[in-house]
């Protein structure tokens, strides 16, 4: 440690403050921008103090949207995003828990093979498989549905892998004690494994919720009905409004609102989240 080195301290703080500034400044600009009148940005000068049109701008996007430009009021888009993110987070966790349970605790033929199959999908992000996936979803008539929005994104190697690693650290004797106590596989899973994984589940939930919330390309592809638009693609809709200048003040207001739910999720689950990533309770 550089306890007594005054200049070292100063330098460290300077670097940290600079880092914070770089991250925070764009957010600040977005918030400021969302409070100005329509014309402000087109003058080419970026205001750094709040304007007086805040209420007005937010009221516009929440209650009116820009219906003529293909952007509905954002309430329904926020709701769609929320549903999609929840379905993805909950679905991923449920499936990953079960598949990790199967891989770690059951000896079945092809166990290693299936593990590697799951593992290999790590190398295939949505963008790589997007065309065939679209084909499948279209054939299953899941375009413009919540199912179509979320199911293709649910299968997840990351979460399966994380839970597998965690399950492998649970002492063998825990399983044996449960067997002596008369707990079958399902009871063991439900009564012991899942409660032990709570912090991991919370961490996974935060990560997956944000992953789902931030999906852009996939919802853009498969939704054509504006009652299924999500907020992140809604931002893009706002920018490319029909033959008019981008209404930056409204775009920024939407951005601010779109960023809010993930922040809330992190704030509420922060304690569990950090715990899940750093310690295991055994």
């Amino acid at each position, binding site marked *: 440690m550089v306890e007594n080195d005054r200049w070292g301290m100063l330098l460290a703080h300077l670097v940290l403050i600079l880092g914070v500034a770089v991250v925070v400044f764009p957010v600040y600009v977005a918030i400021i921008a969302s409070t100005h009148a329509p014309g402000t940005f087109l003058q080419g000068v970026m205001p750094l103090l709040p304007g007086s049109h805040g209420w007005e701008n937010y009221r516009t996007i929440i209650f009116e949207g820009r219906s003529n430009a293909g952007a509905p009021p954002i309430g329904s888009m926020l709701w769609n995003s929320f549903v999609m993110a929840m379905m993805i987070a909950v679905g991923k966790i449920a499936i990953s828990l079960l598949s990790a349970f199967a891989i770690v605790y059951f000896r079945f033929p092809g166990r290693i093979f299936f593990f590697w199959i799951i593992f290999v999908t790590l190398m295939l992000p949505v963008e790589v498989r997007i065309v065939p996936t679209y084909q499948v979803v279209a054939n299953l008539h899941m375009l413009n549905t919540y199912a179509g929005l979320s199911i293709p994104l649910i299968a997840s190697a990351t979460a399966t892998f994380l839970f597998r690693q965690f399950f492998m650290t649970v*002492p063998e004797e825990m399983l044996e*004690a449960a*067997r*002596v*106590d*008369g707990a079958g596989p399902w009871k063991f899973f439900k*009564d*012991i494994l899942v409660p032990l994984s709570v912090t991991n589940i919370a961490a996974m939930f935060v990560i997956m919720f944000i992953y789902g919330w931030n999906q852009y390309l996939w919802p853009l592809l498969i939704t054509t009905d504006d009652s299924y638009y999500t907020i992140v693609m809604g931002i893009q809709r706002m920018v490319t409004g029909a033959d008019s200048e981008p209404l930056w003040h409204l775009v920024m207001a939407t951005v601010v609102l779109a960023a809010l739910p993930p922040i809330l999720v992190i704030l509420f689950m922060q304690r569990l989240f950090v715990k899940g990533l750093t310690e295991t309770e055994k």
Partner: protein
Amino acid sequence: MARIVMEALSKVYPGGVQAVSDVSLDIADGEMIVLVGPSGCGKSTLLRMVAGLERISSGTLSIGDRVVNDLEPAQRDIAMVFQNYALYPHMTVYNNLAYGLRNQGIARPEIDRRVQEAAGMLQIADYLDRKPRALSGGQRQRVAMGRALVREPAAFLFDEPLSNLDAKLRVQMRVEIRQLQKRLGTTSLYVTHDQLEALTMADRLVVLNGGRIEQVGTPMELYHRPETVFVAGFIGSPAMNMIDMAYLRDRGAAPGTLPTGTDLLGVRPDDLRLGDGDGLVLSGTVALLEPAGAESHVYVALDGSGQVVTVRVPGLPDVTEGGVLTLSAPLSALHPFNSASGRRVQ
């Protein structure tokens, strides 16, 4: 309460490793049997076979006149105490004790009665609302015991339950477990690698080596009349001295009246005396004097071979390191063995 009968039990792992071979043992109702042996001798495997955590490759196991080879652990009417306790970390002590009973579908008031009773017996009644994390090692050990007690099983199985405790607590818990077992009169199978624990707790002791039973008997039988070189060396501390007959013959010191076939002579450190006498007489120089309070251990390097024998004497003997010494032991204290068969010569 039940009798446990093992008939020719064997365990072969898929790789072909024979962990337990042909073990037959008849455990009487209420008996405390201690399985002891060095690590890897198959004692834990044998216990786990009785528990139902390891499949039995061949042989028959019955608990209380019921063949249980293919029954799940929970159906065998046994309770097990694990080495690292294996308490459920997310459950309170109360729920740890009650979990197995709930799975059996026992009524709530009955569960409560049994948990309170066990908690009283083990003095953990004050901790019932705590999680295992908030308990000390000794308290966790008690909870693990409690989890076994509440089931009121036909047999207790202990898998090195004291090895995670410090020395003082280990002695205390050893006494408590033994008292509890005697009071309840429950058949028990106890695995340990600590021979002192084995000697003090057992009604009968089973010494295992390489997956086979070396000898079965009361602690005193095993101590005074070990049937194999292995048991002789394993039971008793400090370990029995083994002296080669060829060495004794070369020096003209072979005791005359030994059974034919004897080529290895065992003598306990306690049975060796400082000074000349009848029977076996040895001479050497003192390599090290080790005072241990009430007794002392003298390590003597024998003349000619340099082999170090241990002598246990009360108090602090009047010897100096490097000094020359004569040792003797009466004929009756000698254990004749044959090194080829590894067995006692009759």
